[in-house]
């Protein structure tokens, strides 16, 4: 968005290794990307309990999202260090 010219001591996210940062980015971006690609799941089938795919997929994806976020949180917390 804009350049972060001055990395100060508040940027705890800069503590981790490059690989850790990439993994965190993937864990946070994949759920958001899938939700934003509405045409992917805007279909009737396959249905579940009479509910079209559009509805149940998004509800189910929330659970996957939470798992991704929890992994990202654990990784970020480890990168932050301390207790």
């Amino acid at each position: 968005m804009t350049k972060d010219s001055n990395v100060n001591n508040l940027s705890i996210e800069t503590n981790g290794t490059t690989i850790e940062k990439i993994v965190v980015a993937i864990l946070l971006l994949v759920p958001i990307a899938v939700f934003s690609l509405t045409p992917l799941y805007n279909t009737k089938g396959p249905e579940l309990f009479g509910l079209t795919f559009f509805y149940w997929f998004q509800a189910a994806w929330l659970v996957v999202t939470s798992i991704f976020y929890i992994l990202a949180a654990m990784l970020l917390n480890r990168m932050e260090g301390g207790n």
Partner: protein
Amino acid sequence: MSSAGNYELLAVFISLFVIFIGLGFWSSRFRKGDLSDLGEWALAGRKLGTYLSWFLIGADLYTAYTFIAIPELVYEKGAIYYFAVPYVGMTFGIAMITMPRLWKIAKGKNYVTAVDMVSDKFNSKTLGMIIAFTGIAAELPYIALQIYGMQAVLIVMIGQFNVTDATTITEIALIVSFIILAAFTFTSGLRGAVITAVMKDALIFLTVIVVIIVVPLEIGGFGNAFSAMKPAAAGSYQILPSLLVNGFISLSLMSALALYLYPHAINGILSSSSTKKIRLSTALLPIYGVGLAMLALFGILIYASSPALALVGKYGPVTVVPALIYAELPPWFAGIAFLGIFIGGLVPASIMAISQANLLTRNVIKVAVPNLEPKTEARLSKYFSIMFKFIALGFIFLISPTYSLELQLVGGIIILQTMPAIFIGMYSKWLNKFGVGVGWLVGMVSGVYMIYYANFVANSFPSIETTFFKFSTPFSFLYIGLIALLLNLIFAVVITFIFHAMGKGTPTNNA
């Protein structure tokens, strides 16, 4: 439901409400602190751990927005208003990045609001005041939405008794509830909201789980609900019509961006005890969204329940969830669920009013009167929190929107205009205060104009709500919040660039 059943429902409702009030007053003793200090009263002393943070932030999410506004419009308009599900899925990802950073900045400099940071970073108390008033203004329609939700429960409950004027009784009941709420917010502050939020969420989870299992079994599944609709209409319920795809995406993305700009959400974050706890509780929050998705589906399930449809016909689409519960479940359970929905409006209203009061005291009054005593500051905030609750209450006696969600979406358009100041200001010193100020002005004016245009000029698309702007191809419908924010950002960047080019750069201050 029999008349004895109605009394049973009312008895359960009132008993639980008494417990709720007791909890509210008792909570002032919870993890005791000096409640005449603003940080103690408004942030519960920054002592909240993972679970209480989860409940508190969840309380911001699980409001009348979830129980009332979204099911109402899924029932009325179909799939597009399911946008709330991707919204909650995405918003917590954004929060995981932005909020721990905000907490660290705030902790280091003892900020109580995001505006404290804006004033400091941009070295402009005027910009701070503008952002403070924007936050206060955006919360008002959101609180009004909570009151609509509470009213919806009361009207279904009171309407069952043979009283001559159910509306008046409902209004009196609302006012009495608000006086009680004002009293315990005054004494307990954010602690009262947190403790009662736990009760509220317990009742709501119970309600959602029971309803989503029992009702589909009783009415024979969602398939029956879809086939009970008029065939012509069913299309926009089963999937999203392609015309509305951009509307859906813009609503969900912008709502996701907006949530953590609201003063009440930031207030919740700042009351947490560490960044690690913020990350963990935030990561768990999409689970709350599953309940939201279920409640949204009530708007479809109701098509298979003719007694519930009859109630909605009588009291309006805003009563979709209470009507379905009343029609399909035993009275004692309906009493529990109704109370859950009722305090589901009351608790967030309290949290929102606390955050407005904080902004007004710290970022407006204290700027004008710098040597305000800390005790006076806290006391003023308490009185302001009462004032804002009653302003919002007055609001709903004056204005009646077609759909309750419009209130929240208008709030969203307003709060999004604080995004450059708060989110970008948190990360970068490049933006100039004049750029942010002009961007804000352009965003607000264009946003308000588009709301006006959509409602009063271009009423040519009555099938869709009033917070969309319609383009001819290729965008079709877009949420006004997105367009206004883009204009805001363009002006912020261009004006800043001009200032830098004129050699008047380095305007920000991090002292």
